[in-house]
């Protein structure tokens, strides 16, 4: 209404020429493909290339099985798992190692993280040692753990925990430093004790960092458990993979790895779920800044 008035006032052109100037920014067609479709297409393309390369005999079938072979073996392994056969037992053992390793890593990592992040003794005296140990290739400790704890599950739990502890320490300590000066000053003016400042300010502020540490740790704990099984034997999934590989049964190796990654995926998804539940405000803030 007012737009036409204005237009008439200018005494130029007719009111009927006004068109909605609705327009959209141009995006490439590739970016407009729905995510599920592009992911599936990429996966199929990958399978096709794999199939072609193996069929043409460019790579020896002993080194690289065809996707079809792997697919067949995936079914075999799935049947074994579902039947509750020895493979399920192996998966259970590995899952236990991962679970206990992660539990220990969280407990030790959180405690050391608080020590390092909250006390200047921890920061100045303990941290340098932790950094030094962290830079060592932790997998090299595997034979020691086997020597100390034997070929049973304990040595694998120890290696898994050992690897996963450090990112959790770092995440916790970084989180304790995340509260800004304003918030600290505010707590000081309210007369908060050190404990209150820790529990009501620093820990909640640091939760996102802590969970980042947990996620990195959850990846490390898997690597630790499997490495432990490769080097220390036992009856876990890693042992199944090692045996299959030694018999040059590569399709089996592939399908075992895929099923193994389910444990890792479940762990990661669980941490993610807990984070979203506990750090609900962080997600909201990210959404707002979009």
């Amino acid at each position, binding site marked *: 209404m007012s737009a036409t008035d204005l237009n008439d006032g200018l005494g130029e052109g007719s009111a009927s020429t006004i068109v909605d100037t609705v327009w959209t920014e141009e995006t490439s067609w590739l970016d407009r493909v729905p995510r599920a479709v592009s992911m599936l297409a990429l996966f199929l393309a990958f399978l096709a290339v794999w199939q072609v390369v193996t069929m043409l005999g460019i790579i020896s079938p002993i080194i690289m099985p065809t996707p079809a072979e792997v697919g067949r073996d995936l079914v075999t392994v799935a049947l074994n798992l579902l039947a509750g056969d020895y493979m399920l037992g192996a998966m259970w053992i590995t899952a236990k190692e991962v679970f206990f390793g992660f539990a220990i890593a969280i407990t030790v990592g959180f405690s050391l993280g608080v020590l390092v992040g909250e006390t200047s003794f921890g920061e100045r005296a303990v941290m340098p040692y932790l950094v030094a140990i962290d830079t060592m290739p932790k997998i090299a400790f595997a034979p020691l753990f086997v020597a100390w704890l034997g070929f049973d599950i304990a040595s694998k739990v120890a290696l898994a925990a050992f690897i996963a502890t450090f990112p959790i320490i770092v995440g916790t300590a970084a989180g304790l430093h995340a509260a*800004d000066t*304003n*918030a600290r*000053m*505010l*707590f*000081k*003016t*309210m*007369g*908060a004790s050190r404990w*209150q400042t820790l529990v*009501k*300010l620093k820990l*909640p502020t640091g939760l996102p960092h802590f969970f980042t540490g947990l996620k990195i740790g959850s990846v490390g704990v898997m690597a630790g458990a499997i490495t432990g099984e490769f080097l220390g034997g036992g009856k876990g999934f890693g042992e199944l993979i090692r045996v299959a590989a030694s018999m040059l049964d590569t399709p089996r190796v592939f399908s075992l790895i895929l099923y193994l990654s389910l444990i890792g995926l479940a762990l990661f998804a669980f941490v993610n779920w807990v984070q979203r539940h506990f750090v*609900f*405000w*962080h997600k*909201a*803030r990210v959404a*707002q800044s979009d």
Partner: protein
Amino acid sequence: MNTAAAALTKLPSHRDVVYELRSVSKTFALRRIQALDKVDLRLERGSFSSVIGSSGCGKSTLLKIMAGLQSPSSGSVVLAGTPVMGTRRDIGMMFQHATLFPWRTTLENIVLPIEIRDGKHAARAKHEDARRLLELVGLKGFENVYPNELSGGMAQRAAICRMLITEPEVLLLDEPFSALDELSRDFMNMELQRICMAREATAFLVTHSIPEAVILSDTVYVMRPRPGRVVEEVPIDLPRPRTLDMITTPRFGALVEHIRSRLDKEAL
């Protein structure tokens, strides 16, 4: 009842002094910066004072020393008859950023000082007071909203409630509304005046806006930097309650001009 004595106590010159700073100096050991040089201040009960100065002239340092967050290098700070050595319960503070905690609802944020001081149980008992305060600042209905959903002005209003929940003797305000846009800022300043008058609170405001200092204060302290010192105490004789219309009066303009001239000399 002695009416003469009652009348006397109402006279401004006979109001008692709540805050007294004597020759407060502060030198930061690091790089030997002298932030404050022999600052003297006397705040009367129920008065509103502002300190104005360019940024970096030591305003926040002064406020932190008054709040007991920092120790002066020399000089004395006395609040309500007792020396300030460390943070105190009878002080309420507000900063440029609202600093509400996103994991607490607005109501939980407001009762946080009580929770820290007297525990969760006492905090819950204060929920009713907190609701009344929210109503006072126009945030009724936002009790259970998380701070992420509040605008900047709303967050600062919630921060005001949090400051008031402990019923502090003095309010120390460090550029509380300087992050807000001008419209909200004017509005918040008028709200602040209303709240201070209603509670007869003693307020001390740090600002670098001359009109803001003039419209709110009974006294404006002009500070100059390097080293930070109070160069003039300007009494503001505009009637109360102040309104935004006063900004266009000649008296207001004259006061602003005067303060600006005192500040400008140091800009060189």
